[in-house]
């Protein structure tokens, strides 16, 4: 229990600066261009840059003269140096983006249950990237490459596998064999294939995986890295020399952060540390899994209400819903949720017009019932703005919104909000409805804000009915720490509805009655 509390405190402490960074970058670039929201896709984009530049560099690399061939390439400012610089910086950016991506997934509690495969393949991807970096820097065979090779060999020699210590190859009594550089090159070229396979597995459990950032962000990133590569050209470190001990070497700290630490440790301790770290990272899905009642439950389908429209299948961001034939004689298909793939995002709750699917207690009907009960104690809602806010993002700013006079309802996800709830609030007399969603690329359920916007304004099932006055409705994408933006959106809607006529008030709009089941609901 104490450990769990400590873990939550640490998570909260890390979450605060991250949320502040999100808010700051949102102000600078807008949420569409915020690189923190695109960390995963940036990593993939940088890998593509690495492949493109790497293929070019490969043309000039010579196994028999590694340092000389790289030096010749680096000396060519027009066709070599900037490509090598871009290759280097893209590899660093890919690693940074990967680390940010992993941290976000961890802090957003998106690392367990059906996301276990994504987490584990992500850990493996990171390991492969580090290995790729190691082989890449060794290829150059300068002082830094030699230090990496020596340390890798020292640690490897602790394993009772090879009869001749690998370190012997770098002792200086004979030239480093070409076979070493050939093997190193082979690994450096072959590992991206493994990377591709792991990436495919990484996204295999999500529907409509987004692999690249928006083009403006993508080209801006490449452009900035290219600018730095040209303006601050890479230079060659001294060639690896087994007869000198350099005081310091120019090092890539992203890929060699571990070197100053491991050099002081016994190889057995290094292996133990690597094993413990890897196992710890692989165990995160089980360590972060909520226990007991806090664990979200998967969606269920009310077979009586299901019309077989397949909208929930189309909307599910995790491909967790399939259609199957009915056993009750009706001609339509019926939806079935795979609990092993369902992350309990509740997006299906809002996709179902008859409100027959969703996690227990969070279906459209449940939302309506809860809202009806909450609004029942008050007759006059005129002038009142109702705010539906995602509890993980802008919903954390309830007190500030309430202080401004808003009536705030937290929802699990904006994409979870059924349009009937919005209609109910307006028909009960609310002056306006403000929906505060997370920015789309920061939605922990991937597609919540996108589907919400389409349901409200573009007639996606279950669409907001035409009879609802859209002038009283506003959606704002706001980051969790961006209180000012949330309050600005509230003020904007207030100003807009103030110019409108007084809304028509209905005592008890029966929005769910039209789809009441003819027989008691049967859950599966």
């Amino acid at each position, binding site marked *: 229990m104490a450990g769990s509390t400590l873990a939550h405190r640490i998570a909260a402490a890390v979450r605060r600066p991250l949320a502040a960074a999100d808010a700051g970058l949102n*102000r*600078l*670039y807008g949420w569409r*261009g915020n690189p923190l929201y695109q960390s995963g896709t940036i990593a993939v984009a940088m890998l593509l840059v690495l492949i493109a530049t790497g293929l070019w560099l490969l043309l000039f690399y010579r196994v028999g003269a590694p340092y000389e061939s790289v030096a010749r390439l680096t000396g060519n400012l027009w066709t070599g140096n900037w490509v090598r*610089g871009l290759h*280097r*910086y893209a590899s*660093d*950016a890919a690693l*940074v983006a990967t680390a940010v991506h992993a941290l976000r997934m961890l802090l957003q509690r998106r690392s367990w249950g059906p996301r276990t495969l994504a987490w584990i393949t992500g850990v493996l991807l990171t390991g492969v990237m580090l290995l790729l970096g190691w082989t890449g820097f060794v290829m150059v065979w300068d002082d*830094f490459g030699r*230090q990496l090779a020596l340390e890798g060999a020292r640690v490897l020699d602790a394993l009772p596998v090879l*009869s*001749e*210590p690998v*370190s*012997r190859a770098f*002792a*200086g*009594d004979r030239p480093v064999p070409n076979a070493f550089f050939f093997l190193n090159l082979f690994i450096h070229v072959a590992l991206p294939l493994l990377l591709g396979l792991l990436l495919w597995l990484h996204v295999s459990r999500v529907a409509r995986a987004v692999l690249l950032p928006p083009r403006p962000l993508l080209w*801006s990133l490449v452009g*900035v*890295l290219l*600018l*730095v*590569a040209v303006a*601050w050209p*890479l230079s060659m470190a001294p060639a690896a*020399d*087994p*007869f*000198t*001990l*350099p*005081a*310091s*070497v*120019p*090092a*890539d*700290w*992203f890929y*060699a952060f571990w*070197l*100053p630490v491991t*050099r002081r440790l016994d190889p057995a301790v290094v292996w133990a540390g690597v094993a413990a770290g890897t196992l710890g990272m692989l165990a995160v899905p089980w360590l972060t899994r909520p226990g007991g009642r806090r664990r979200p439950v998967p969606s269920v389908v009310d077979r009586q209400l299901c019309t077989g429209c397949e909208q929930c299948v189309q909307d599910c961001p995790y491909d967790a819903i399939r259609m199957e034939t009915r056993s009750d004689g009706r001609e339509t298909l019926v939806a079935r949720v795979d609990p092993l793939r369902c992350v309990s995002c509740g997006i299906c709750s809002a996709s179902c017009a008859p409100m027959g699917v969703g996690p227990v207690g969070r279906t459209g009907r449940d939302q309506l019932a809860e809202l009806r009960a909450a609004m029942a104690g008050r007759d006059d809602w005129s002038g009142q703005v109702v705010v539906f806010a995602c509890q993980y993002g802008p919903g954390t700013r309830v007190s500030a919104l309430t202080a401004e006079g808003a009536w705030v309802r937290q929802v699990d996800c904006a994409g979870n909000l059924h349009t009937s709830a919005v209609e109910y609030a307006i028909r009960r007399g609310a002056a306006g409805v403000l929906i505060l969603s997370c920015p789309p690329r920061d939605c922990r359920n991937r597609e919540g804000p996108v589907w919400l916007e389409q349901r409200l304004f573009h007639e996606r099932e279950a669409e907001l009915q035409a009879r609802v006055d859209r002038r009283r409705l506003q959606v704002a994408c706001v980051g969790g720490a961006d209180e000012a933006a949330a309050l600005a959106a509230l003020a904007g809607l207030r100003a807009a509805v103030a110019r409108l006529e007084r809304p028509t008030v209905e005592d008890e709009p029966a929005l769910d009655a039209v789809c009441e089941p003819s027989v008691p609901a049967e859950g599966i």
Partner: protein
Amino acid sequence: MTPVVRRAAGGAVALGIALLLAWLSRAPMRVSRSDAGIIRVAWSARPERVERCVTRTDEELRDVPSHMRQRVACEGRSARYRLLVRRDGEVLADEVVAGAGARQDRPIYVLREFSTQPGAMRLEVSLRRLDSVAPDPGPDADDREAGEAVPDRERRERQERGRRLGEAMPPSLTLSAEHLMAPRSVLLVTYDAERRALVARSADGSP
């Protein structure tokens, strides 16, 4: 914040982060805190063999598959050696080295490093065989025993045994050298297979 200011600030932040990334990709990393150098003792060489050889008769050879018909069959292990490293009389290493591998039938791989302060020093390295090895019967011993023309295969066997014997380290190796150790330099002591002797090398080529 006006859009122009926001764009300028966004560009500056992006450039700043990229420059930080570029600097961290080449920032110096300290790898040696002192001026100390290293004496590196490193080589790989085949040791002599401690083995018992049996000359098999024609009847015995007939009982084994044709590809295994080896006239002289030897079993044994590699000899062990005592490695002694002294710097100005101080013993840096005194240990037994043996062939690598689970059966110790691989070459002896030596790799030892000793940190040492810059300056003049006297280095002594010796390697002496600990096990006794049976003397080589000589290239014509089998011929004399057989008293007949030697088949080609058996001649090749003898040549192979002779080659292995020639490649093996001598029973005793010694190196004694004065050396002026430069700061952060490496003095390598290795086995020169052609000269069948221990030699010292450094960056400037001097022992």
